[in-house]
């Protein structure tokens, strides 16, 4: 009986979704390197003159809020999204049916909050199969950037940045506010900003919650732009 009801509700929800599909405020992320679309495994030169090629870019976005010009606020529920450069669908995040109000701000976290990090097995984008969960020390990797650079005197010249941590003083989540430049919610993540702030020859493997991870989390904020 309850199951039947549930099916109806789900069907109803799908119908609603169907009719409003064209008018949903959606965050569209594009991943750039110096204002150009980033391609994996392609070589780029950073402002620090490091030659780099990326093979992974994954990032959690959570607790998305949309602020309108009348100061009302829409907060997405169960708002956890994994952006993965290898999965273009993940870069579009439908949030809420469009209304007549003008959007003044988009607010969200980079990373996963401490509650989700301590609540056991999660589903959806937080599922452990996404490869963004630390095994030996619980918690999510908020941001994963991996690749190669001749500047790194490491095995296979690899660099790995796994930025995370849910316990103070190394709570690596960061909240950011962006003002959309047009009616579309086009957001850019420019990795050139990240690599312009670090010395790859010294800093090339950050894999645990730490002070250094906190610094990189601060730097990661600068990657997010609206143009």
């Amino acid at each position, binding site marked *: 009986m309850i199951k039947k009801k549930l099916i109806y509700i789900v069907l109803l929800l799908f119908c609603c979704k169907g009719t409003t599909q064209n008018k949903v405020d959606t965050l569209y992320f594009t991943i750039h390197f110096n204002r150009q679309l980033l391609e994996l495994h392609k070589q780029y030169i950073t402002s620090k003159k490091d030659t780099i090629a990326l093979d992974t870019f994954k990032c959690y976005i959570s607790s998305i809020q949309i602020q309108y010009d009348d100061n009302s606020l829409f907060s997405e529920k169960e708002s956890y999204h994994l952006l993965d450069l290898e999965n273009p669908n993940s870069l579009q995040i439908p949030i809420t049916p469009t209304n007549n109000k003008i959007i003044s701000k988009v607010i969200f976290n980079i990373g996963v909050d401490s509650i989700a990090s301590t609540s*056991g097995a999660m589903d959806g984008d937080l599922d452990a199969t996404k490869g963004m969960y630390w*095994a030996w020390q*619980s918690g999510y990797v908020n941001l994963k950037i991996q690749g190669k650079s001749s500047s790194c005197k490491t095995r296979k010249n690899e660099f790995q940045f796994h930025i995370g941590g849910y316990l103070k003083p190394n709570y690596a989540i960061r909240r950011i506010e962006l003002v959309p430049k047009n009616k579309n919610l086009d957001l850019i993540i420019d990795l050139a900003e990240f690599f312009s702030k670090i010395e790859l020859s010294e800093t090339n493997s950050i894999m645990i919650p730490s002070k250094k991870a906190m610094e990189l989390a601060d730097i990661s904020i600068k990657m997010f732009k609206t143009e």
Partner: protein
Amino acid sequence: MRFNLRNILFIGLVVFISLAFVKKLSNDVYFEVPKGWPEPHYNFKNNPLTEEGFQLGRRLFYDPILSRDSTISCENCHIQASGYTHIDHELSHGIDGKIGTRNSMTLINLAWSKSFMWDGGVNHLDVQPIAPITSSVEMDETMDNVVKKLQRSEKYRNLFFKAFGTSEITGQLVLKAFSQFVLKIVSSNSKYDKVMRNEATFTQQEQKGYELYKTNCASCHIEPLFTSEKFENNGLPIDTTFNDIGRMKITNKKEDYLRFKVPTLRNSHFSFPFMHDGRFKTLTEVVKHYNSLGNDKNLPKQLSKPMNMSDNDRVDLVVFLNTLTDMDFLSDKRFKYPIK
């Protein structure tokens, strides 16, 4: 009209009563807290126990499909007859015969545990299996691939459907099934428990050992779980072949240097060897170690005074520890390898 009303009332009552039963069945409280024990730490609301979930978890526990080359199951390092640890191995070995750096822990009364692993690095029972599955010296597999392998198996698709109402297997459901099995591993029927329930009495020697336990051990190995869930430096010199700094690796705090989880004493007669690196083969050696401590300001206050136990005292204490052996638990058929 009147008769009809009565009929309707009667039918209504029957429906009401049946509904109450429906509710009871779906809320099957399958987890019993032993009398006098604290409430479990695990939040069962997020993962209600069912027989089907338990059986699925049991199957997964014994299935080497979890490892990269299908050679290692959870049971390899967590054998029921030893209190679910790797009996007779100082350090546990996993895939390709690789050896880790720590002695596998027992799996006993984990519903009451707040953190997992010798260093407490894992914060929730549900996510604990990720560590052995993905460790390169244990199962060396990814969660993603475990789910893909299970999804290809018709047997598992059916078992997940029975347990969770979906044959769409996810990492979350795999982990929840594990928890359902492991949570039911409760040891509460040792002689000690029977004595506490006034169903048995200690021998004179056991009673003497119990008093010694209360004086010397009970501040960390707290009844009835026989652990404080805390991390302590128990005075073992560091093994320089590992340089395992314990809890400090997780917290980065100096005071956590050489601190390890206080393990339960339950079933310790069967869970040898002892300590995080399995350095002691017998309980006698363990008791001797603690008896040799004292007057050392690096030790926690519980161990700062010498115990000064005589040889007879040490024997009595070990005899008491044997009253924590729960044979029903160590041989419980519900937890054995599932034959069908």
